[in-house]
């Protein structure tokens, strides 16, 4: 199997889908799903392969190189997997929207370009694919149109461009210094470079990757982008696109520079990795507390995306075997459950006619049981409850932090988990529990093509939680490729000498105890089922449909922390943007279009020159 074929299918499929859409919409939908499926199948074949291929198609005398290794494969499979599920989900979700040809084309195109970034083997094509990705994401964020969507898209693209420019500077500097941009030969040559130069390159690239990863203080584009993007794309954005930043860090920190150089990058007690860790910790805490105060389903999830990124960077930046396994596993886990949660939020939107306000939903568990099951499993994974996948990766990360003697980072990470519980419960409670408002009495479960992605991802969350050995084996291969020691992995977790985790034991214990209690309760006492209005209110009658129990769920806390939790960073960016706009407006006043003014400018300028010459005689 050839790598060109993979790229060909990805890009060709996107264009073909657009063309087929001109003929018939059914044909287009079918082809889009087939194309995404083909990508998954083809990508699976590359498992364990290590290919590097030079293609005779040069640009500025720089060759175009494709390469596939375990790291690329790991990211590629998440891209194509989530891509397939989102397109499947889009079929019904997007049914009544306009511009569908454009939508399917862009979504496939983004997938193709993301695939491009992970399987290219030189920095020029990496940059090109990266730019295609950024621009097409902008197109899809602003897809809905309207002021807010355009604003969100603009916020995103400005930040993305700042990142790309930093990266471009790094790339040019690398080319000037080493005369090559092939990743594999750069990895060898850069070993001899000076420490300061490496630091400069690293910072330039990190800016790009941190922005796309939405780490604090560059997080502010993500919540807006999510709130405005269409839901199937939100799940791609949050699950895989944002994590291209993690791929970038892997590529740069571990594939090009390598552990030896990274460990040497220390100035006193401040190291590059240490700074990354603290950025991660701040991101976790800030995002968790902000998410707590949100009242919009997708904004909560967007903030959680920001926060979970912090855990990944905590694991990855420590660069130990445990931490790396935890960080890598967390990327995979996050991708699974956040996609799941966005699909759930989308299902609610689909059935309630676009309602995303948590304060006006409630009681939907009785009407949408499958969506609810998906939601609760996703939230459990997000929290990291034992027996879900999130638990294993977080366990590995905490374990690293404690072994490496960083209790404060561990504290922030744990605290973030408590924040997650609070907003996770709010998400579930406000949508599915509590009283069902009368207007949602006749709501039905979503159609099967929307249930299917939810079901598949839910099963994966649970499966990887009970048998973490399956994904950890693959992650172990990824990490050993990056030069880390191999972990001793069992089917139920980890059995290395510095830490044992056995989820199968926990699973057995909980299941057996659960069944015993269930049987006991089943046998005893009679149960009478009552409806939602038949509740105890200490003698005071609760009027029907008057109360909304979910409004201001954490109000006492909200009152306490609100003054401290302003998004100063976001306000700062907006202020900078505004003042630049004002400045530009001011400058535009000069160009009046009246020739008389221009003549006056010229004369004034000449007068200035003459004045300067007469006074100081510089020429």
């Amino acid at each position, binding site marked *: 199997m050839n790598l060109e074929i993979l790229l060909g299918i990805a890009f060709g499929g996107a264009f073909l889908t657009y063309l087929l859409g001109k003929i018939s919409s059914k044909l287009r939908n079918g082809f889009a799903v087939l194309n995404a499926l083909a990508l998954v199948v083809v990508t699976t074949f590359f498992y364990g392969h290590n290919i590097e291929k030079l293609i005779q198609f040069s640009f500025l005398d720089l060759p175009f190189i494709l390469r596939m290794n375990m790291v690329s494969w790991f990211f590629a499979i998440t891209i194509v997997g989530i891509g397939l599920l989102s397109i499947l989900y889009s079929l019904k979700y997007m049914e009544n929207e306009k511009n569908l040809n454009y939508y399917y084309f862009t979504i496939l195109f983004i997938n193709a370009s993301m695939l491009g970034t992970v399987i290219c083997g030189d920095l020029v094509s990496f940059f090109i694919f990266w730019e295609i990705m950024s621009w097409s994401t902008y197109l899809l964020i602003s897809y809905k149109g309207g002021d807010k969507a355009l604003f969100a898209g603009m916020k995103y693209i400005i930040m993305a461009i700042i990142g790309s420019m930093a990266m471009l500077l790094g790339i040019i500097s690398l080319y000037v210094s080493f005369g090559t941009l092939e990743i594999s030969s750069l990895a060898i040559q850069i070993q001899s470079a000076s420490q300061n130069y490496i630091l400069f390159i690293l910072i330039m690239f990190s800016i790009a990757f941190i922005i796309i990863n939405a780490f604090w203080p560059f997080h502010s584009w993500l919540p807006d982008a999510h709130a405005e993007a269409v839901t199937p794309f939100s799940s791609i954005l949050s699950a895989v696109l944002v994590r291209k930043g993690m791929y970038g860090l892997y590529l740069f920190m571990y594939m090009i520079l390598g552990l030896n150089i990274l460990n040497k990058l220390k100035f006193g007690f401040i190291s590059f990795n240490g700074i990354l860790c603290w950025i991660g910790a701040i991101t976790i805490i800030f995002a968790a507390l902000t998410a707590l105060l949100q009242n919009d389903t997708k904004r909560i999830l967007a903030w959680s995306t920001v926060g979970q990124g912090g855990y990944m960077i905590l694991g990855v930046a420590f660069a130990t075997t445990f931490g790396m396994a935890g960080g890598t596993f967390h990327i995979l886990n996050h991708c699974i459950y956040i996609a799941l949660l966005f699909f759930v939020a989308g299902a609610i939107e689909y059935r309630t006619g676009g309602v995303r306000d948590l304060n006006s939903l409630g*009681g939907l*568990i*009785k009407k949408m049981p499958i969506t609810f099951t998906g939601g609760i499993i996703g939230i459990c994974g997000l929290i*990291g*409850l*034992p027996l879900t996948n999130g*638990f294993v990766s977080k*366990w590995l990360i*905490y374990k690293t932090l*404690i072994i490496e*003697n960083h*209790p*404060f980072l561990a*504290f922030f990470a*744990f*605290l973030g988990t*408590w924040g997650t*519980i*609070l907003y996770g*419960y709010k998400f*579930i*409670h406000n949508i599915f*529990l*509590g*009283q*069902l408002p009368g207007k949602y009495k006749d709501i039905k479960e979503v159609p099967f093509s929307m249930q299917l992605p939810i079901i598949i991802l839910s099963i994966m969350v649970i499966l990887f939680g009970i048998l973490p050995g399956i994904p950890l084996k693959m992650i172990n291969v990824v990490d050993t490729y990056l030069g880390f020691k191999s972990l001793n992995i069992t089917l139920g977790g980890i059995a290395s000498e510095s*830490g*044992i*985790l*056995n989820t199968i*034991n*926990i699973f057995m*214990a*909980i299941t057996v*105890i*659960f069944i015993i*209690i269930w049987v006991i*309760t089943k046998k*005893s*006492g*009679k*149960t*009478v*089922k*009552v409806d*939602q209005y*038949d*509740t*105890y*209110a*200490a003698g005071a009658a*609760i009027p029907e449909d008057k109360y909304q*129990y*979910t409004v201001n*769920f*954490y109000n*006492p*806390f909200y*009152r*306490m922390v609100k003054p401290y939790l302003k998004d100063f960073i976001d306000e700062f960016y907006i202020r900078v943007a505004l003042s630049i706009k004002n400045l530009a407006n001011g400058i535009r006043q000069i160009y009046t279009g009246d020739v008389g003014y221009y003549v006056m400018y010229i004369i004034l300028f000449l007068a200035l020159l003459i004045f300067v010459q007469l006074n100081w005689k510089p020429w």
Partner: protein
Amino acid sequence: MVVTILEIILTIFLAGIIGLFFLGLSRKVMARMHWRYGPPITQPLIDIIKLFNQTNISHGVLFNFGIIFSLAGSIVVLLFIPLGKICPLSSSGGLLVILYLMLIGPLGLALSAGEASNPNASIGISRKFLLAMSYEIPLLLILLTVMTHYKTISIVEIVNTQLQTGWSFKYLPLIFSGIAYILILPAILGVRPFEMVQAPQEISSGPLAEYSGKYLALVTIQHAFNVFIGISLFTNLFLGGAENPGYLFLKMLGVFIIILLVNAVFPRFRIEQAIGYLWKLPTLLAFIGLIVVLVT
């Protein structure tokens, strides 16, 4: 294998008995302080047996399963905490797993009570989570101090070290954490002044408002286990654990009596006051403890 299963059964049994005894004892002690005679110590057990035979109401599937899940979660936590020398699941992940498993209890109960669609339940849950969030900050600092000090995440190893060197409470770095732990213990156990979650006179028992019959029995059992877990975790980490369950029980009894005295004399905080209290002195002490451990 057989030994492990026997140990598991023994742990659950003993913990249940001790927990229910504590519940009964607390009613008796409180009554005596109020110059009443009080119910017999076995009253909670009698109540549970009675409740299992009564008719009960249900609000849906999650209402039933949430509480069962919550109880199962609490019981599994027990298996990770050493009861004397008995600790059936000691080698499955240590203190980090305990921290996470302890989430299942409140979360299961909250999900179950959430489906009841009772406004009091929603208020109670919201308070429960906020309270948990606020005592979790000092608690995490304390646990991290202990883990950093002993350089392990295994609670069995912590207990074993203490058996050789003496209680952690006696040593300088951990004394701050120990005091902080005592200060937040009433909040963890949910007794006065941190009783705002249930607040019977105010929000009619909060999350428990809709439970009746066997489900109320399950909630009571879960409460008994939670009391046991809360106190035994403290005893194991700071008071040296014990070599046999009997000795551990005596230590736990001592701690529980102190908590009861606090419970008897204090009125109820509002939730903001509770957050304010927990984030000041206990957090400061726990923080100092962690700094001291890191420096030494």
